[in-house]
């Protein structure tokens, strides 16, 4: 039951991405590229509606004593703005602005079977793996916290 529900969440997430048009890098770039000939506000609208729905309803979920199939909510509690947050987001922004893919759409687009999508995905996983490996060794030296925002 638990895993069926998690599976369904993932399914709905991917369907949402597909319907919204965000699996298309050309639409993402069409938003990011303000100076292009045709500016496409779609991505902005996707962000507003998705974050809006989450904003409206997440408190109602968090008010429950616990999630359906866990003892606690795993919502990040950190509020400090540190250098890794800003630096990492800059690197992410560069990659996103270059290609037009972020992780969710890249995973969803894999079924297209297009070579470039797979190149992107493999490189992305390699980047994640590289950071994970670095972080593990770093943590041993600095005891860096590993709270995850998302």
């Amino acid at each position, binding site marked *: 039951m638990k895993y069926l529900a998690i599976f369904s969440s993932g399914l709905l997430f991917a369907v949402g991405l597909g319907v919204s048009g965000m699996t298309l890098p050309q639409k993402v770039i069409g938003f990011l590229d303000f100076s292009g000939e045709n500016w496409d506000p*779609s991505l902005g609208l996707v962000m507003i509606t998705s974050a809006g729905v989450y904003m409206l309803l997440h408190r109602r979920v968090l008010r429950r004593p616990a999630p359906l199939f866990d003892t606690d909510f795993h919502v990040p509690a950190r509020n400090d703005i540190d250098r890794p947050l800003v630096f990492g987001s800059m690197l992410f922004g560069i990659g996103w602005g270059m290609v037009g893919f972020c992780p969710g759409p890249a995973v969803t687009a894999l079924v297209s079977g297009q070579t470039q999508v797979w190149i992107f995905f493999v490189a992305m996983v390699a980047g994640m793996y590289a950071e994970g490996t670095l972080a593990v060794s770093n943590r041993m030296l600095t005891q860096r916290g590993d709270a995850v925002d998302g």
Partner: protein
Amino acid sequence: MSHRRFANGTNFSITPEGARALININDARLRLAETFHSGTNGARGGRAGIMEGFTPVLSSIGGILIGLAALALLFVNGRIAGISGITAGVLHPTQGNTLWRVIFLGGMVAGAMLVRWLHPEALAIRIDVSNAAVLLGGFLVGIGTRIGNGCTSGHGVCGVGRLAPRSLVASAVFFSVAVLTSWLIRHVTGAF
């Protein structure tokens, strides 16, 4: 029941109700395709006219579905629906914290197959940079989302939805850097 013989000699028969249902389905599909068509072509198609690729209806519906899916994951097992974090967690598995990630990603692949079946326009992907740039971009997205602890879903949707200060900062940074990068490589240097 109406019978018809096609030019190639095959026979075809259908009841009136069946015909109406088929026509309705086809109309809906055409409308969907029309709404979307401009979206797949727009943006950088080189045609004049602002907001040509804009797909307000589908993008709003899709956005709402994304928000609901993220809420569902929070409701079911109390997790933030951050795709970069979920994916990275599979690469460095820890006891009792990996299976749900694999299942979620499996659900995404199943959802993607559903999209490919019912709405294939959403996978008419065009990437306007070289394979080398795709490789570099992918690596930067992977390492950057891990160093910054989140991507468009974890920070952008869930974090901004919770008005979490870290996510608001991260989203402002990656959006503005993405706009700047896109402008630099598409209008200034043309390097890729």
